[in-house]
């Protein structure tokens, strides 16, 4: 490597580092703002956290006792004050106690995050695989029956809401055919084990992956078709290279770059998709806790979960951009 090239690489590395720093610095106010917006929204919600906490026992509960719990929680303080108190503790690493689950928030998240990551990671990998394979196949045989089938199915799935897909899968595979379990982590009377979890993972993962794969399939197909008409692919074709080599080696490679951006952009969708899938399949992940927290106006848990989700989305986008920049030297790093 020449000295000029090394210097250029170093300069680019430094620019990349700056990009990361700049983005991270920008992430802080975003997270703070999202957290505050959440508190405002929760405050405006028609549900009363104290009533939710008492549940049925609110009937007949003496006003003094209800007022006492209200005071213990400080739910009647102005929203800014509640937010600042929460923030002070959060910065110190203490996310407080979940009011609805009667557990420390860190414990709630710790117990559930692993299951959610498992679900989302496997589904993401599967969706990616499906996207690449089917997208390439469709582009390769553009206009053929395979392409028409894949495209039609992809559009249909793109339009279908995730929970609808989930309920349909539940109905067909769990209730009618009884091939796969309909929910939970294990069978009711079985111990936690790899086999059990794998079997229970199939339906939720497939539904989540299938709801996301169409975006990837259609994107890969489209950008492959574009790159088929570009000079380097026509050049490769005219040199007489075998078709599969041209598609995989020349066309696919260049069309994968914008794909990275799409992955980053789809991340929030994947998280909301997981939320619905976990609810449909009784998956004990973080998303179920989010729904419970929202319904119970559980400030502490909601706050921590929102910050977590925001951070994941921001990091995902950053990662996509960094990979993009690392893969393509032409990409500018001005943010």
């Amino acid at each position: 490597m020449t000295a000029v090239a090394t210097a250029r690489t170093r300069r680019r590395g430094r620019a990349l580092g700056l990009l990361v720093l700049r983005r991270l610095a920008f992430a802080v106010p975003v997270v703070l703002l999202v957290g505050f917006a959440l508190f405002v929204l929760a405050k405006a919600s028609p549900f009363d956290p104290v009533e939710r906490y008492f549940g049925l026992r609110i009937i007949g509960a003496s006003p003094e006792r209800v007022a006492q719990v209200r005071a213990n929680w400080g739910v009647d303080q102005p929203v800014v004050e509640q937010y600042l108190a929460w923030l002070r503790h959060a910065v110190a690493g203490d996310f407080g106690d979940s009011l609805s689950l009667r557990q420390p928030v860190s414990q709630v998240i710790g117990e559930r995050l692993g299951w959610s990551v498992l679900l989302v990671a496997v589904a993401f990998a599967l969706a990616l695989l499906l996207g690449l394979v089917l997208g390439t196949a469709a582009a390769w045989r553009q206009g053929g029956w395979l392409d028409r089938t894949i495209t039609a199915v992809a559009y249909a799935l793109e339009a279908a809401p995730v929970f609808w897909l989930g309920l349909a899968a539940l109905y067909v595979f769990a209730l009618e055919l009884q091939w796969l379990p309909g929910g939970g982590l294990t069978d009711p009377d079985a111990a936690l084990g790899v086999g059990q979890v794998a079997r229970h993972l199939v339906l939720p993962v497939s539904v989540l992956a299938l709801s996301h794969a169409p975006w990837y399939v259609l994107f890969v197909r489209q950008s492959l078709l574009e790159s088929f008409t570009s000079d380097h692919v026509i050049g490769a074709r005219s040199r007489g290279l075998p078709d599969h080599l041209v598609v995989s080696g020349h066309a696919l490679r260049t069309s994968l770059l914008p794909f990275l951006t799409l992955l980053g952009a789809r991340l929030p969708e994947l998280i909301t998709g997981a939320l619905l899938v976990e609810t449909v399949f009784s998956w004990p992940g973080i998303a179920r806790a989010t729904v419970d927290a929202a319904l119970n106006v559980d400030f502490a848990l909601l706050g921590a979960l929102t910050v977590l989700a925001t951070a994941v989305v921001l990091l995902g986008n950053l990662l996509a951009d960094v990979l993009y920049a690392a893969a393509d030297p032409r990409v500018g790093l001005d943010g």
Partner: protein
Amino acid sequence: MRRLLIGVLVTVASATACTSPDGDTAADTGQSIVIGAGGEPDNLNPILGYAPDGASKIFDGLVSRDAQLNLVPGLAEEVPTASPDGLTWTATLRAGVEFSDGTALSAQDVVFTYKSVLDAKTNSTIASRFDALADVTAPDDRTVVFRLSHPYAPLVQQLTLGIVPRKAFDGVDVNSAPFNTAPIGTGPYTAAEWRKGERMVLKANEDYWGGAPAIKTVTVVFVPDDNARATRMAAGEFDGTVLPPKLAKSYTGKSGYRIVRNPSADYRGLGIPSELPFTSDPKVRRAINLALDRQAMVDTILAGAGNPAATPISPHLKDWYDPNASFAHDTAEAERLLDEAGWRRGTDGMRSRDGQVARLPILYPAPDVLRKELALAAAGDIAKLGIDAPAEATTFELMLQRQREAASVWGGGDPYDPDTAAYTLLHSRYAGQPGYLNMTLYRNPAVDAALDTGRRSLDPATRKQAYTDFQRAYTADPGWAFLVFLDHTYVLRDEWDGQAEQVEPHDHGLVHAVWWNLERWTPKP
């Protein structure tokens, strides 16, 4: 490829299932049971509000209840009794009881449990039950003394609260203690595993002071949706579950299954606003009660699984219920009462008085299908009297806010003592107080007097008379239109003996329900 993958996974899974150490044939011999429950407890800490009426599986109270709801000794040697002035209750603890972690039960644990409930810093949902309790002390290791601020006969009914070991809370905040999800009790079962939102596994406490249960493993799966529960029961996943009567019907006569219908004190009723000019007249409220065809509601909406209600006291509570306290379905009398009250039919058939239209909106919480159907049925019956009675879907919060101008379908009730069922609901002391107390702002001096006598006297005959007086005074001037008491319907695989019918409270998930005495069930030979 996908199918192959699934096939592989299925094979792996079944292989692991066969080789797992505790995956023996326990299910066939009735040593384990899988229950599909509709409701899941928020936590397993009695201090915060888990199973205050007993049947908690994991804990014991000082007293517990038999099938007829009579109090029987639990951790106390005998059912505690009050001093003659009714202000001091003394309990002596059973000797030799241990918590599941091996520590011995002491009076200090009882004191800790009750004091924590009373502690203002504890976010307990059941503290109101102990409002009369001033202090709890332990003169020695086996004696507990409860001191009251006023005589309160139903206190002994509240001593079903589970006792927790004080040691488990050393230096931790009760509100978020690890104990709340992994408890230690003296009860017949221990909580082995709880995956919130999914399932809980209970293991038999082999050293239980009342004898080790015959069913060794209890798996409770939480499925809130009725249809999902019915499907999983049909697929053979559960040994027993709770189902709406209409869904349970398909098990009628099915071999190997039983349908169990347990009565409850769980009422649904229409709270009629006492401050709305139209319904402020007792005659109008009586007319509304007479216009309702409660039997039709039971027959159609509940598919027969229920009873008409007239007061918050269930007909199944034989000790307290007054058979005369009921409302006939008599529309002619209802019309007459309305005429007498001055609300006369106009040319359009609608009633009015001094140019004011007879109008009573009927509110129900939108997601609750049962309450919606009851609200529509009640609105239909009331409309027949020439009253404008629109049914409106809303939320509990808004029902409470509109308590002065609209009737709402509320629910509640427990079968243990008429005081808890009626006092805060109908005593004028609670009229207009914030919260879900006397929501209709009902004021009736005769009812107040009867409720106060019933609460303060210790003599059973005096109490019985007080609650008879209460039911008479209430039905003469009803502040509500109680509609129905629900029965709870269960489907059970017919593999165990030992079930006994018990009148149930509203709560029938893991606690109470048909498996309230699960620790005494035995596998059928």
